[in-house]
């Protein structure tokens, strides 16, 4: 037998836990060096773009919500905005306030879930939040209470937190109750304080060392931290409008993984999500979130993917703070939805899902029926970056015992908060044979 210094033959994580959807990770090692890296997706395709064809435009937000149970609001918001752009329709300022508020609810719910239940166990040596709860019950109990506040916003505005029912093209089927929202203010104030604590706590966690050279891409507005709309800003190539997305960001067939990955027009991988948003838009954060970042002496740009948890924590402060402000501004009047004048057209929109930029584009005919739909989810855009990150991490992994290397690689992927159910629609499933 040849005496090769193999520390391990492969890191193979057959089922990636604590992510949304099911995936796997494979790192092939030969003669002490990494030969192959694959982020495998074994979620089956569900053909959403296929069965959206021929549907009436108001069916779209109900259907696209079902792409993802954790970020249905993101899907609904990108859908309704893209369809409104196709019709040239403007919604009322109060309807927009309710949309932004609902999105804050989803950021709170999803970010708190990810910080405390999906990623924190990796940083505290636990398998799950349930085992973390045995050690630190207050941390988990308070996290659940914060998460519940996010879900309560969703319930008041949309009827329920998973697949809410109230969003429509033009605004809302019915105005959410201002009274019920105001009754939530004391809990939101508590949540804001707790989120500020979470940033401090997150600042003390032991993150693995890794500094990478990312191209960050996120929505950007000059007047606020962009969630619902804006231009698409890249740290390398500047700003474009939402309508120009497809000519600047492409889905490419990448041979080594046999999957489609998003690339810039120049062929580069790029990063979307909390880290991209924080690095590009920190000037637009509200005063509370800015102070939270200063208090832990946060230096930007932040280029360690594991530290996206810090970005999520700061964004959770922003979401609580903003929700409180938006409830103060919310005073519904008049029709909850703008009347639709149907016409043929094409419209695109992007919004910031908790895990990153979510792009939708629809072609409508004159009856308002969808002729073509295109959806580019955040995890699809990040997949190329996840594999690139693993290549960068590989030299460190090779020095670690197998168990630690496996966990460190898994942790890297979990830090992306990957939404594999969402990404699936663009991935091919048959994995090619290892050479």
């Amino acid at each position, binding site marked *: 037998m040849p005496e090769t210094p193999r520390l391990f033959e492969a890191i193979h994580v057959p089922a990636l836990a604590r992510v949304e959807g099911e995936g796997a990770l494979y790192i092939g090692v030969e003669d002490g060096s990494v030969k192959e890296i694959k982020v495998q997706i074994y979620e089956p395709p569900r053909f959403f773009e*296929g069965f959206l064809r021929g549907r*009436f435009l108001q069916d779209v937000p109900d259907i696209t919500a079902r792409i993802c149970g954790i970020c249905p609001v993101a899907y609904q918001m990108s859908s309704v905005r893209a369809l409104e752009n196709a019709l040239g329709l403007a919604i009322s300022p109060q309807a927009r306030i309710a949309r932004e508020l609902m999105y804050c609810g989803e950021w709170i719910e999803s970010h708190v879930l990810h910080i405390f239940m999906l990623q924190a166990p990796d940083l505290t040596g636990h398998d799950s939040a349930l085992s973390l709860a045995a050690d630190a019950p207050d941390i988990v109990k308070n996290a659940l209470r914060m998460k519940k506040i996010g879900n309560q916003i969703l319930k008041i505005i949309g009827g*329920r937190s998973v697949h809410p029912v109230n969003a429509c093209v033009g605004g809302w089927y019915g105005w959410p109750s201002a009274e019920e929202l105001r009754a939530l203010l004391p809990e939101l104030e508590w949540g804001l304080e707790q989120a500020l604590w979470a940033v401090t706590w997150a600042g003390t966690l032991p993150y693995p060392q890794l500094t990478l050279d990312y191209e960050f891409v996120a929505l950007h507005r000059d007047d606020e931290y962009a969630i619902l709309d804006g231009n698409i800003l890249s740290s390398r190539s500047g700003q474009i409008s939402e309508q120009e997305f497809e000519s600047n960001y492409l889905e490419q067939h990448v041979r080594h993984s046999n999957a489609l990955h998003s690339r810039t027009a120049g062929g580069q991988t790029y990063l979307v999500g909390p880290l991209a948003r924080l690095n590009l838009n920190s000037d637009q954060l509200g005063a509370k979130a800015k102070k939270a970042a200063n208090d832990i002496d946060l230096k930007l740009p932040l280029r360690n993917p594991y530290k996206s948890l810090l970005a999520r924590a700061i964004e959770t402060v922003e979401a609580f703070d903003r929700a409180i402000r938006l409830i103060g501004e919310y005073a519904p009047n008049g029709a909850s939805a703008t009347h639709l004048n149907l016409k043929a057209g094409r419209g695109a929109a992007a919004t910031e899902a908790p895990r990153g930029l979510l792009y939708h584009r629809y072609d409508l005919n004159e009856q308002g029926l969808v002729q073509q739909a295109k959806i580019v989810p955040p995890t699809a855009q990040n997949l190329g970056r996840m594999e690139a990150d693993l290549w960068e991490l590989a030299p460190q992994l090779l020095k670690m015992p197998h168990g630690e290397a496996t966990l460190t690689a898994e942790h890297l992927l979990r830090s992306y908060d990957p939404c594999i159910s969402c990404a699936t629609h663009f991935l091919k499933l048959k994995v090619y044979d290892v050479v």
Partner: protein
Amino acid sequence: MSAKPRIAVYKFSSCDGCQLQFLNLEDELLDLAAAVEIAYFLEATRDIQPGPYDLGIVEGSVTTPHEAERIQQIRRDCKTLITIGACATSGGVQALRNFANVKEYAAQVYPHPEYLETLATSTPISAHVKVDLELWGCPVNKYALLEVVGALLQKRRPNLPQYSVCLECKGRGNTCVLVAGSVPCLGPITQAGCGAICPAYNRGCYGCFGPLPTAELEPFIPVLKDSQRYPGEAIRLLRTISGAAPKFEKAAQLIAFEEAKHA
């Protein structure tokens, strides 16, 4: 060895929303987790314990050859097997493929459809193995989920609503959108469980909780058909979340037949 009941949560083709309802039980989750052994639940933990399990909970439908095989082993591993959500109980939103040509779909979405491994239909778990209890909803109601798990652990019958969305609507004091607003609504033939949220926001029910087993289609079909605001609306409403549930499928066929007669 723990004497607590061992629970496994599985995912098939789905959005994760029904499993997420466990994690959305913010006030009850820690107590629930203390009462059982969560032996397999990938969305929540990387600690995976081998079977057999006392209770298997399945989210999602069967859409690939691999899933069709996998469910057989899961059935063998689980003493009691229940399904949660529209996908697992009727095929879900992705069962819309059952009414279309999957090859065309694949060619629209994927540049290399020849690589895809998929079945022509999305089918419920009960089409493949014996299911002990089906909990409907898109998503399932989290308190119903708690009730079902609690009841099974206490070896009693779960207390679930056996009536239509209309009753929940009345209880909530909603104005009937179908009668007063002439908005197509599946409430009269849909199982309760959501809390009649759609009519509460002035819109018609789109059938997330699936057909009520005792619902009569004949008197309802003409009412639904007459309430349409644009051609094809009623059929599309039926074919949204639980379109492959036999009763909704039959209703859509009846309407299509009626419309063809008058065309």
